């Protein structure tokens, strides 16, 4: 049995079949249970692990329908409207689900109903494996009121006036009930009786395009997985082409026979439909993941979904420039799939004087066609006669030591960087860069100098702060190295 803290008490929160036979039930105090049966093993609960397990189960349930939600702490809601026929009917689907879940060693109950409320009530409080479609009233009437997912306070209040079963309230006048127990209570009842629609908030967004394949014999080899991807992509292609779409983000879900689900996502920098291109993406993803894809005893279901689709112009042939662009996009996709999306980037220019904010690297897949802002920067550079910027730039300026300058706020004559002393023989500057007056971004004013040392190494140094400000209580200025020139 499992115990956990509820309020100040350690209560039993789950008991197994053996304990149940001894007369123990959830809600009993741990101390009381121990007094009754000192030899019992009690395990503290681990809610985080429970939540993870529920998530994993929900993942696995995706094999039945993409539209599902978890109902913590122990329920999973599946919207099987429109997919039950794939499994030979609603009952068959439920039996298959229960058989598989029981096979994993769980005890489970399932109910099919027209509303979330009714299904959850029937599954938790009704006879195991009940089915009710269009008979919500009959199904719900004998169940206790707690089945309506009400708060325990409401249930207790209803019990005090003698209302214990759902049947007791079905024919009562609504206005007094609402006045006494709150509108929320009637709403839950209406939802269970399908008088009011209750939307299911899916756990994962439902992909606009999905193709999947069931295997009688589980597959485990990488080559088989890739062949499956290509076949599924083939099927997606028809669907995508029919609506003039192409895939931007794809996800391959592999359902392992033991219930684990592997999800592999891949992105593209332009909408694609070509099965070969999609296969190539997953070749790189699988190569990058390597041993992380543990097939175990094999995968028995593979699903390829398009998470994001965008209108895709029909293939153009010719016009050299476009071909080049398409090839670059394909290369970017391959590199991003293997190394990670954030590792393949393009540089964009920002309208900022602070050097570290003037340029940024964005994922190349996201910026394939974006305006990167360098034309504007070029115009500004020429108009403002900006002093040359370094080729290589340190993300964090490195402090330099032993800086010696002839005048306090003047250029350095020598400095020590990474333990080596550099004698400055040529200097340009200062170029003063200050943050905008409305924010503190960039810290104190900086004086940038381009310096060349005896060996011909060229650096971009700056002094943050001014010596003359020390009289006003400012901290002493510090020197940094920010970049290197060729």
């Amino acid at each position: 049995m499992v115990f956990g803290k509820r309020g100040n008490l350690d209560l039993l929160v789950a008991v197994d079949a053996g304990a149940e036979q001894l007369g123990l039930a959830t809600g009993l105090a741990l101390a009381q249970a121990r007094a009754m049966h000192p030899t019992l093993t009690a395990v503290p609960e681990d809610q985080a692990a429970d939540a993870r397990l529920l998530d994993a189960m929900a993942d696995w349930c995706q094999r039945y329908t993409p539209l599902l939600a978890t109902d913590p702490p122990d329920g999973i809601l599946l919207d099987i409207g429109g997919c039950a026929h794939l499994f030979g009917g609603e009952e068959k689907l439920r039996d298959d689900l229960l058989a598989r879940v029981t096979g994993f060693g769980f005890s489970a109950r399932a109910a099919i109903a027209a509303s979330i409320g009714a299904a959850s009530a029937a599954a938790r409080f009704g006879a195991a494996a009940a089915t009710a479609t269009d008979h919500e009233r009959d199904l719900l009437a004998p169940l206790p009121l707690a089945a309506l997912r009400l708060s325990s306070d409401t249930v207790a209040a209803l019990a005090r006036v003698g209302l214990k079963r759902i049947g007791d309230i079905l024919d009562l006048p609504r206005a007094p009930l609402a006045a006494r127990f709150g509108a929320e209570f009637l709403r839950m009842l209406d939802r269970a009786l399908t008088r009011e629609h209750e939307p299911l908030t899916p756990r994962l967004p439902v992909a606009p395009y999905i193709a999947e394949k069931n295997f009688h014999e589980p597959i485990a080899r990488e080559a088989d997985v890739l062949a499956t991807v290509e076949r599924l992509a083939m099927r997606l292609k028809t669907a995508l082409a029919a609506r003039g779409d192409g895939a931007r983000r794809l996800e391959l879900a592999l359902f392992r026979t033991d219930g684990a689900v592997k999800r592999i996502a891949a992105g593209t920098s332009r909408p694609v439909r070509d099965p070969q291109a999609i296969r190539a993406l997953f070749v790189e993803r699988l190569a990058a993941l390597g041993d992380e894809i543990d097939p175990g005893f094999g995968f028995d279901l593979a699903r390829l979904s398009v998470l994001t689709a965008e209108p895709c112009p029909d293939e153009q042939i010719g016009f050299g420039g476009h071909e080049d662009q398409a090839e670059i996009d394909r290369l970017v996709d391959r590199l991003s799939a293997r190394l990670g999306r954030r590792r393949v980037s393009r540089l964009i220019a920002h309208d900022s004087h602070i050097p570290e904010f003037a340029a940024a690297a964005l994922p190349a897949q996201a910026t394939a066609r974006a305006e990167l802002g360098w034309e504007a920067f070029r115009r500004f550079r020429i108009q403002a006669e900006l002093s040359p910027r370094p080729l290589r730039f340190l993300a964090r300026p490195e402090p330099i030591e032993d800086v010696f300058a002839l005048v306090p706020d003047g250029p350095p004559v020598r400095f020590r960087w990474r333990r080596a002393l550099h004698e400055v023989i040529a200097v340009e500057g200062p170029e003063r860069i200050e943050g905008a007056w409305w924010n503190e971004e960039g810290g104190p004013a900086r004086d940038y100098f381009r310096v060349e040392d005896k060996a011909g190494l060229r650096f971009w140094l700056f002094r943050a702060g001014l010596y003359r400000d020390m009289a006003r209580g400012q901290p002493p200025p510090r020197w940094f190295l920010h970049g290197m020139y060729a």
Partner: protein
Amino acid sequence: MAAPARRPSVSSSAGMPAALDRLRRELCAAEAATGLTSAGGAALALGIPAIDGVLGGGLSCGALHEIVAAHETETAAATGFALALAARRAFPSCRGLARIAEKNVLWIAEDLSLAENGAPYGPGLDGAGIAPERLITVAAGRGRDVLWAMEEALRCRAVGVVIGEMRSRGIDQVMTRRLALAAAAGDTLGLLLRTTPHDEPSAAATRWIIGAAPSFLRSQGGDERAQGLGPPRLAARLVRNRRGHLGAWIVEWNSVEQRFELTTHSEPVAGAACDRPHRAAVA
């Protein structure tokens, strides 16, 4: 093979007999047959006759070249040399033509190297003649990822130049040969930028050791510190050349005209009698 036609002047400058010339022709033909250099590939002239002569017209474009910093602190100078070559190859248009012929440049670097030597900086690249919108940067966690990404990129015909930056050692003949073959297949200029000199065997067409050199304004007397910085000047040593002589030059990069200029007379390291000098003389 087209190779002999590209190498007009070397034999005359060295005053070698015709037999040597014939031998070299045969060597070029044999090399093209291995696929390490693309037979029909164009040559990228550096713009300095002395160097282009030694290279047989210029750096072969569909090939791999190694650029090594003379010292780790001189990585920026080596970067500058690589970028200058990339600018000449990928953006010939900046010298007056429309921007239609521009190609993409990929800069693939190890994380370690980016942290140590700094990341590519757009505003600086723009000033040096590399259009940042044509640059794709790739950060790789490990050296082998750099090599993998380089090979992929070199095979892509839409890429003009691939710069691969490696800090770790352990690039063997097989790897460089793979890269050279990929460069030949894609007719892409591959530049392997290394931050410390190694003397590993390599299938690269050339190997350069690049160091920084003081810019010219210093030597003109007066108050030196008031003179400011001149254009970037590099000490380039050609220590491996599959096609001919070696040499050492001080070159200056003119980023406006996008060309190299020679600042001193070349100092040939190679002996005049033989095509390939003794190793000791080079290192």
